[in-house]
């Protein structure tokens, strides 16, 4: 035993030293991504075999477990595997914990191998520029691009080449509880910010906390408020100039919003701030279509029936237009480049399969999520989802949220700067400066 360990470890060591000499991992060839998944403990065979054999693709998939897309995605993959039974096989690797998935994905790319199929949503330019993604341009030009709604593919294009498929669309309208608004004497959602403050005062007078806010975790919903307000003040082109006064003005509005929120908002995570809305303790909230399922399942007193959605109100004197929407790519799908033509073919075949309108319509109807794929016109939308689509279609513009246009370092700093802002440590100007210092 001892001898065995000794010999074995000598092996470990020499390999490790070799790896150490290989530099920083940035230029490693990426060829180790795929392995036979059925025999994990026993011997493993590389899938880079001569053509003629079945090509196996691994997909570390976040749409698994209890995720609302899990069932349909599984179905699509099963259908694909059946249809191409003699050529390809896609294996889903369940990745339910999103943060852990992101860490794992980045680590494997940093170590030189991107997964066969994967999704991502952050700092897309880095992914697109990494040189580790399969170039999809040729197939797109050959007709695949017709599947997508107009302009969508630009989001996945880098240096005139398409490296990623923009798939899931995130839109984040304001959600409000009309029963609580009625208690405060309002039968519709305000159209301007002045009215919004009136509503807030009326809600407080009726003993209802107006807004759910949060600064814990990534401060997600409050970041969405900030995005909405920045756009309402500065208009859709505001992101072109990080020094735009709209950012400071929007910070002032955030301070005011936090005067109308729950006592635990500073430090609250998504489940706490969302929980207040679900429990009818707060009247107004921001989130996306994926939240509809939560409203139905976890809302108290059937509150889902009471929820309506609205674009952000007009800001007096602001450049934002009525009905302006916040929307962004919630998930890109890409394929890791292995340099193996057979594999590339399989990867593209699967991505095409995944983006066929009929399948996406089903996925959308089933999960409530929206996609960058042309609808085949037969989709049966859920009530709020249908309203979102109407509002998207009526919107004069759809602009991205603040986190999507900001580098990851700014996104990281946002919850910290926001809590400093609402606790009075930062002035609105200091808030903006502290974010910009991370650029």
């Amino acid at each position: 035993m001892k001898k065995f360990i000794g010999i074995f470890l000598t092996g470990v060591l020499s390999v490790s030293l070799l790896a150490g000499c290989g530099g920083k991992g940035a230029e490693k060839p990426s060829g180790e991504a795929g392995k036979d998944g059925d025999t994990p403990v026993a011997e493993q065979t590389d899938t880079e075999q001569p053509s003629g054999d079945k090509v196996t693709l691994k997909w570390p998939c976040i749409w698994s477990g209890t995720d609302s897309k899990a069932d349909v995605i599984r179905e699509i993959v099963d259908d694909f595997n059946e249809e191409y039974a003699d050529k390809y096989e896609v294996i889903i690797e369940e990745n339910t914990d999103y943060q852990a998935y992101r860490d794992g994905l980045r680590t494997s790319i940093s170590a030189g191998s991107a997964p066969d199929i994967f999704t991502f949503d952050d700092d897309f330019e880095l992914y697109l520029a990494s040189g580790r993604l399969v170039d999809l341009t040729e197939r797109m030009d050959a007709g695949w691009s017709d599947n997508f709604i107009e302009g969508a593919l630009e989001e996945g294009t880098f240096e005139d080449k398409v490296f990623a498929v923009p798939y899931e669309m995130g839109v984040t309208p304001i959600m409000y509880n009309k029963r609580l608004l009625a208690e405060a004497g309002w039968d519709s959602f305000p159209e301007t910010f002045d009215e919004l403050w009136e509503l807030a005062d009326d809600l407080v007078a009726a003993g209802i906390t107006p807004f759910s806010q949060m600064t814990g975790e990534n401060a997600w919903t409050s970041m969405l408020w900030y995005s909405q307000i920045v756009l309402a003040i500065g208009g859709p082109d505001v992101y072109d100039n990080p020094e735009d006064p709209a950012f400071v003005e929007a910070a002032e509005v955030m301070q005011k919003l936090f005067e109308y929120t729950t006592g635990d908002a500073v430090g609250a995570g998504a489940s706490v701030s969302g929980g207040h809305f679900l429990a009818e303790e707060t009247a107004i909230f921001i989130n996306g279509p994926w939240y509809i399922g939560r409203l139905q399942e976890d809302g108290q007193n059937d509150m889902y029936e009471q929820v309506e959605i609205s674009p952000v109100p007009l800001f007096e004197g602001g450049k934002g237009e009525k009905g302006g929407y916040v929307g962004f790519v919630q998930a890109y799908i890409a394929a890791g480049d292995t340099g193996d033509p057979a594999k590339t073919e399989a990867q593209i075949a699967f991505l095409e399969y995944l983006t066929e309108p009929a399948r996406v319509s089903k996925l959308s109807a089933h999960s409530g999520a929206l996609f960058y794929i042309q609808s085949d016109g037969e989709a049966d939308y859920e009530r709020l989802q249908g309203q979102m689509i109407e509002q998207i279609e009526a919107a004069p513009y759809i602009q991205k949220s603040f986190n999507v246009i900001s580098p990851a370092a700014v996104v990281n700093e946002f919850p910290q700067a926001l809590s400093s802002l609402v606790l009075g440590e930062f002035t609105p100007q200091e808030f903006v400066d502290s974010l910009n210092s991370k650029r």
Partner: protein
Amino acid sequence: MVKSSKNFRLISVIGSILKWFFLIFLFVYALFPLIWLTISSLKTNAEFMASPFSLPETWQWGNYVKALTVSGIARMMFNSVVISVAATLLNVLITSMSAYAVSRFEFKGNNLLQMMFSAGVLVPLNALMVPYFILITRLKLDNTMLGLILVYTAIGIPISTFITTGFMRSIPRELEESAVIDGANFYVRFKSVILPLSRTGIVTAGTFQFLTCWNEFVYANLLTSSPEVRTVQLGIRYFTNQFSTDYVSMYAAIVISIVPSIIAYMLFQNQIISGLTSGAVKG
């Protein structure tokens, strides 16, 4: 004389009250999370979010059914047992050997070695994801139990060596010397003198090593991908996803997952006690 003994009794009564107050307070403090966790695991998510400290209206045993059936946690528990037991045995064997060498002998580089091991405890493992990933994929051990066993055995080396060395150092030299006189060589002394006498330390280190393996998440997530090798911590995370967490099912999974840890802990601790009946070591 009488008076002072009265005072003495008063002091001891007060001391006793303080002692019990202290012990019971800590008892409640330590027990509360488990009770809360168990109660929470029997609520609905809506109840849990609205009032985290209330009792459920109806006890949701279905959460346990869900935790057991949906996540495939049973298989993952089995994997965790295999991986944790193997990595604990291997780790304890390797570290008691190296602890024996560094704690009982003088040789060149001994101090440096001990310092390196101690400093190893400090290394923030979160910072090592990329090099570990490279190491394990180069060895073709990604997505294998062996890979995780190797990683877990290794990451526990500094802390186990540290604990075991401390215990071995306190064994009186005379015991070993008399064994030398009896003709016992290096290996025999290790096996029949040092190992039995440092059993307490080794079992303590083993307890922690087992729990480290059982609770480790970052590398289990990074280095495995298929259900056949994944561990129980990934089963727990099965109920968290991108936009929401099914807390109550997750808690049910956690309650299920800590049962083996508690059993292992109790077994190990009884080991220590029975090991001690053979006679005191220190003095």
